[in-house]
């Protein structure tokens, strides 16, 4: 079994970065100056973390949350108000669906994120790293959306269109740029599955294990969905919130698999014991071909110093696992 480490979602945005964003929004910082700050701050912050990582993201430095500003790239969607992100003390902008949804031909916010990735990947520290681009999953998008159009009667219809007309074109769009799409899908949960037909929604999703990573977290996922999806894509599970998944891996692993194991709690500052965590992961050793060790969800729920410590832990777990 091979082992890798990965950043999932974003990395805590520094205060000075936030100040730069604020000044840009007020028109007090020019575009060039802003970009200088973006690259400098991202490099400074991620440079310390990246040495412990095989997969890295754009840190979501240019994003307020998983929806904003990405939803600006979707036709038929307007940015909504702040709503709680599951049971966290963290708030996101919900998508207001006003018409048929479609990825814009020139997705400018995605382009900006790709530009940042390109600038980073030229840095020696980032050489050889695989970059992932975090994007909301169809069920999560539908779950947070407020439908204000007769175009969609229910969340399933909306999620199906999101796959066909937003995600698939996006996967095509970034494929040529060497990026992996990291689909955040906390709403792929046992309770949500009864409301939305995950099977129908995911049927037409393109891509494969190499370029599509679907990350599920927080809620208890439906095992059947994990099994079906892990036969086609790389799946991430939250073993912090759902440790029982390790009891019967055969119930949810779909054949020759690469699994992302979310073993580091991104919602608590307490540091995990790498020895213990590695021991836990060894239960998967003869079940999967490769394991990606990561936090269960985005590290943005943590203070920056702790996010760094937790990233270092990933590498220590990987080393212990190799032994």
């Amino acid at each position, binding site marked *: 079994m091979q082992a890798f480490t990965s950043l999932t979602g974003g990395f*805590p945005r520094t205060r000075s970065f*936030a100040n730069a964003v604020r000044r840009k929004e007020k028109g007090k910082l020019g575009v060039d100056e802003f970009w200088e700050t973006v690259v400098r701050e991202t490099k400074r912050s991620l440079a310390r973390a990246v040495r412990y990582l095989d997969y890295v993201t754009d840190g979501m430095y240019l994003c307020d949350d998983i929806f904003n500003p990405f939803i600006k790239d979707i036709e038929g969607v307007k940015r909504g108000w702040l709503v709680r992100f599951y049971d966290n*003390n*963290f708030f996101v902008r919900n998508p207001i669906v006003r018409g048929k949804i479609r990825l814009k031909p020139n997705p400018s916010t995605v382009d900006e994120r790709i530009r940042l990735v390109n600038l980073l990947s030229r840095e020696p520290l980032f050489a050889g790293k695989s970059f992932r681009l975090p994007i909301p999953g169809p069920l999560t998008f539908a779950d947070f959306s407020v439908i204000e159009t007769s175009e969609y009667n229910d969340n399933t219809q909306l999620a199906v269109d999101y796959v066909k007309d937003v995600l698939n074109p996006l996967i095509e769009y970034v494929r040529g740029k060497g990026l992996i799409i990291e689909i955040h899908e906390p709403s792929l949960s046992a309770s949500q599955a009864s409301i939305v037909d995950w099977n129908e929604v995911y049927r037409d999703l393109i891509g494969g294990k190499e370029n599509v990573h679907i990350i599920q977290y927080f809620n208890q996922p439906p095992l059947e969905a994990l099994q079906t999806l892990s036969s086609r894509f790389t799946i991430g599970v939250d073993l912090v919130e759902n440790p029982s998944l390790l009891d019967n891996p055969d119930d949810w692993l779909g054949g020759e698999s690469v699994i992302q194991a979310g073993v580091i709690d991104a919602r*608590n500052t307490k540091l995990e014991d790498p020895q213990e965590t590695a021991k836990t992961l060894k239960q998967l050793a003869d079940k999967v071909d490769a394991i990606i060790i990561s936090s269960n969800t985005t590290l943005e729920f943590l*203070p920056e110093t*702790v996010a760094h410590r937790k990233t270092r832990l990933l590498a220590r777990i990987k080393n212990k696992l190799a032994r």
Partner: protein
Amino acid sequence: MVDYILPALPTSVIGSYPRPAWLRRMIKYYRMGRISEDAIQEAYDDAVTTIVREQELAGVDIPADGEQRRDEMVEYFAHQIKGFKFYGPVRVWGNNYFNKPAVVDKLEYPGPMTVEEYLFLRQVSTRPIVKVTITGPYTIADWSFNEYYPSKEDLVKELSNIINQELHALVDHGAQFIQIDEPALTTHPEEVEWAVDLINRTAKGIDAKIGLHVCYSNYDLLFPYIDEFTEISQFALEFANRGFNDLHKLKGFSKELGFGVIDVHNRRVESPEEVALAIRKAMKYVEPEMLYINPDCGLKLQPRNVAKKKLESMVRGVLMVREELVKRGVRSIPFRKRV
């Protein structure tokens, strides 16, 4: 036991109030090391004097100190209670950060945390009753990282003991009306049941009126528990922000209601007529003897002049309804410590 008589529909505030611009500057200078500890304490005292006077001039019956000395409602207590550690800020939304504390050791009561605040407020207010606010144990726990206690419930239990000691200290110094703030109460539906027990434990044996403020929350989760809050006499709830919808759910409400009539997230100043209309609507379900009037939540996010105008409008709206109540023979209500 009835100690005081209040006018019908007593008006109050939830707690926080915008800091005067000069206080914000003084705090900045203090942090830069340019002014002394004595100077900043004097500035805080002056700000409280001003803010309390401002509330009284607006006609508020039960003022608070505007939480002028507190940067943030959880941080303020986590800085004082022993066993907390601060690793740095976390983002809550957009570019807004919160200094989320971590529990890294057994928590210990450090001695009075709000008594000085109360004594100063008591000294500068001309009103017979003033309100002291204190962040509840559940919200402190929910907005902290827990590295030490085996479960969140254990952590909340410890905090409830600590806050209970603080409430005793306040009462020993004469406080009569204390509001426990629990905005996080309904965030995790599966925890509400034990949280209610621990809030009761927090207020156990306290000889004062204990209010509970719960805002921007799922009231459908809260309302079934109202009767079980044996130690709480008043619920200060937010209704303006909800457009005064769902008021029918107040039918049979067994405690006093601190009715939120002012939207604190909107700069538009409500008219007195709107306020009066909302109160009349609430009185369809809650007896006027059980009704206090307040804004939805703390006003600290509003510009100061807007906050002041909102309070003035609130009081004028109340005066309109009071006139109507006089015709029904309702002029005053007793200040009840227990309901």
